């Protein structure tokens, strides 16, 4: 484990109220980028980021993992899943409408697009936007494995624990994710 992280956590547990701030700064981008791509927008991502940190604080005295960022990813993953389940229940209670009486859009309308629209290609999206769109089209599990690998050095063994599956399943998901992205971004591949 990173000794900088360990020292910061020990100092915080010993009563130093400023000890964790460097860790917030250090990990805000990978954690937030991961959450943002696993959810539907900045508002949701902000809420999940905040809740993840609150859960970290609640359980920090129990922290025994080898990597602090991996632990936060695990907490964020669990919260995203819990939240999705809650929202699913709300959706079914609202008779199929996602956002209540005032919102006439269906859940399908609100879900991320299932592919890159031809009209979007014509309008000339920025490369970054195209990549983000391509990542959006991956299945939730493929996207999660891909993002965790991209944003941290989290091992496949660790990802397998988080996703409750075998390492081979995780490897297969990563292979599919890379293959799909490669074919979706074939025109942009050379510019990556």
């Amino acid at each position, binding site marked *: 484990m990173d000794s900088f992280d360990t020292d910061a956590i020990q100092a915080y547990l010993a009563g130093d109220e400023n000890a964790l701030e460097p860790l917030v700064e250090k990990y805000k981008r990978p954690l937030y980028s991961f959450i943002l791509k696993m959810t539907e927008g900045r508002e949701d991502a902000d809420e999940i980021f905040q809740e993840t940190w609150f859960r970290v604080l609640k359980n920090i005295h129990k922290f025994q993992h080898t990597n602090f960022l991996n632990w936060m990813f695990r907490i964020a993953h669990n919260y995203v899943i819990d939240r999705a389940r809650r929202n699913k229940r709300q959706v079914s209670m609202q008779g199929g409408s996602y956002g209540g009486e005032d919102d006439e859009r269906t859940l399908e309308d609100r879900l991320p697009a299932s592919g890159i629209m031809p009209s979007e290609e014509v309008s000339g999206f920025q490369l970054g936007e195209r990549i983000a769109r391509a990542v959006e089209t991956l299945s939730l599990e493929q996207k999660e494995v891909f993002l965790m690998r991209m944003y941290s050095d989290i091992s*496949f063994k660790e990802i397998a624990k988080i996703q409750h599956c075998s390492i081979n399943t995780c490897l297969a998901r990563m292979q599919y994710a890379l293959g799909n992205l490669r074919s979706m971004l074939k025109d942009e591949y050379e510019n990556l």
Partner: protein
Amino acid sequence: MKTCEQIKNQILLEDKEGLPSEVLTHLEYCESCREFHGMIARFKTSPLFAAKDEPSLDVLNEVKREIRRRVPSRSLTVWRRWRPALVMAASFVVLLAFVLQKNTPQTANVGIVLTEMDVLDSQEQVANAMNDSFSEDDLAFNFVMTYDGTL
């Protein structure tokens, strides 16, 4: 001989020590796996895949405020450090008390029962000993003297 699928898995599992020699040999003649290896390197190093999104300033400040608010006090930290040992010691004491409470009355009961049996035994033994020590004439005399007319 490993399949391309297995080689690709090994490429994905590449650690700081690098790829095993059999993978490197495979990459020399397999274009598909070579391209896969290059793709991972390209994705990992591309700034377009870098984590660059940040939470809003309000959220960051809220998190930092909460961190300061929830900082554990020193006494709590000491308590948490010693808690496992204290819990174990307390459990041991409770267990010991339970065992002692459970065993002590049982021992007493057994003792009492044994004592009663001992008493009964000894009464019989005394009677036998007495009878053994008297001659037949003594017993006949004793019978006559204590006979109340009923048999």
